[in-house]
């Protein structure tokens, strides 16, 4: 009697462990399968240097600055209404097109109601919708309203890049074998990357709508997994000096960190002057940021920019 019970228990435990192992292997396979694809020079994408730009003709520069247009995909929810309102009132006005996608509609603000509670399923729907309604736009910026973005600096980053090539940029992070772009500091996709992504969405094996792993992967990691299957890899967005442009921390945080790390060289040692995003700022702080970035300026100070990006209508610039 006792020995039978013990055998049974042993069997159960072994069976359970085996099951767990299989599931583990199942989710790991997703990571290693596309290891054969050439990683080549991709891992970081840098903004053009001044030299690079001065080598272009005036007409080419004009062409590029007119052509680079950003379509913003902003994922909102009624529970963060103040952030939603702030994003709608501030930085999103600098996108050539800004569409808000929500989990459920709100009487206060306009958005495309995807009526979807699952974060990953909702993101998929939003991306698909943005792709189908892209029009002439070839660059896509996916953000949450808790992120603050400077769209002009994003335009500068992708200025000389061809959107018919696959680009998937932002603050590139690593989780085990998987390299992905962090959601909270914004995700940039070229038209080609988005096209491949929307196609792989149809493949339930490679890119299921409801994740198969025992534990749920966050949407940004899911995105990286799906894109990897199409041969698109996460790359870190950097300025010409190699400083990251996408910050998962707030501007106050990065400066405080720099005050500790480089007490004699706080500003130089900090973040890029051409930063594209910051995360973790309150709505009030974002309003102050708009003032600091777009309105307040030192009279007579020349930033020596080679290009001009005109703000879209109604973006409240001087």
């Amino acid at each position, binding site marked *: 009697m006792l020995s039978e019970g013990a055998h049974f228990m042993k069997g159960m435990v072994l069976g359970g462990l085996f099951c767990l192992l299989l599931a583990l292997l199942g989710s790991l396979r997703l990571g290693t399968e596309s290891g054969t694809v050439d990683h080549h020079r991709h891992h970081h994408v840098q903004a053009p240097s001044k030299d690079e730009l001065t080598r272009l003709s005036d007409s080419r520069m004009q062409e590029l600055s007119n052509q680079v247009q950003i379509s913003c995909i902003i994922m909102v929810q009624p529970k963060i209404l103040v952030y939603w309102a702030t994003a709608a009132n501030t930085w999103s006005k600098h996108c050539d097109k800004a569409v808000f996608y929500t989990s459920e509609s709100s009487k206060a603000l306009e958005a495309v109601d995807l009526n979807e509670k699952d974060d990953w399923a909702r993101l998929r729907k939003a991306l698909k919708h943005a792709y189908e309604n892209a029009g002439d736009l070839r660059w896509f910026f996916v953000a949450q309203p808790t992120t603050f973005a400077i769209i002009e600096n994003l335009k500068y980053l992708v200025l000389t890049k061809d959107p018919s090539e696959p680009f998937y940029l932002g603050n590139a992070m690593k989780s085990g074998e998987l390299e992905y772009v962090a959601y909270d500091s914004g995700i940039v996709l070229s038209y080609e990357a988005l096209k491949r992504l929307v196609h792989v969405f149809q493949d339930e094996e490679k890119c299921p709508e409801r994740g198969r792993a025992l534990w749920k992967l966050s949407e940004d990691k899911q995105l990286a997994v799906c894109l990897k299957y199409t041969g698109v890899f996460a790359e870190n967005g950097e300025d010409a000096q190699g400083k990251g442009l996408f910050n998962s921390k707030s501007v106050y945080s990065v400066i405080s960190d720099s005050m500790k790390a480089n007490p004699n060289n*706080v500003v130089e040692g900090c973040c890029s002057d051409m930063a594209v995003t910051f995360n973790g700022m309150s709505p*009030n*702080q974002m*309003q*102050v940021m708009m*003032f*600091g970035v777009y309105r*307040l300026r*030192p*009279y*007579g*100070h020349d930033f020596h920019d080679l290009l001009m990006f005109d703000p879209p209508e109604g973006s409240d610039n001087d």
Partner: protein
Amino acid sequence: MTGPKNLESRTKHIRETWAKRCNKVLYMSSVETDFPTVKLNVSEGRENLYWKTIRAFQYIHQHHLDEADWFLKADDDTFVVIENLRYTLSTYDPEKPLYLGRRFTPFISQGYMSGGAGYVLSKEALRRFVEGFDTGKCTHFSNIEDMALGKCMETMKVEPADSRDVKGRQTFHPFPPDHYLIRQPPRPRPCSVAFVSRGGK
């Protein structure tokens, strides 16, 4: 204007940031240090603020009068965009008795400049301020630095000049930026008193 308590926490950061854009900067304190700070014959504390200001201007008049045209007084919690200050001052003559800042109207008939927002004296204004105390025309009749200095300016016929921009907007601010940028919903009042908020768009 600073003191030993704030050198590390505040004044150090001023020294590393906006103060670099001044032609000359002096850090006024009650203690001499390698910061470097100037030792004025005063004690620290809000009650002694006007004395400190008087001594500071007397010190500058004695040692540094010819080194500048305009003399900015700022506290260790003030942030100044020096380029914009230069731009504002560019249309005024430093040999005229003028001073600029954020003008408040109560108490003094020609008004006075807010201490917290920082204020600037022309060279002539500085001469007259010091002269006022030398001759006894100006006295330490109050602790309230900005108001009392405003009284002395009036006595010595130093005029308040306009620091507002071409659109009539203020350029000196006694509060931090978010005070002016964030619209606050009107608070419920017991009686019908109109609440006018400063600044904003």
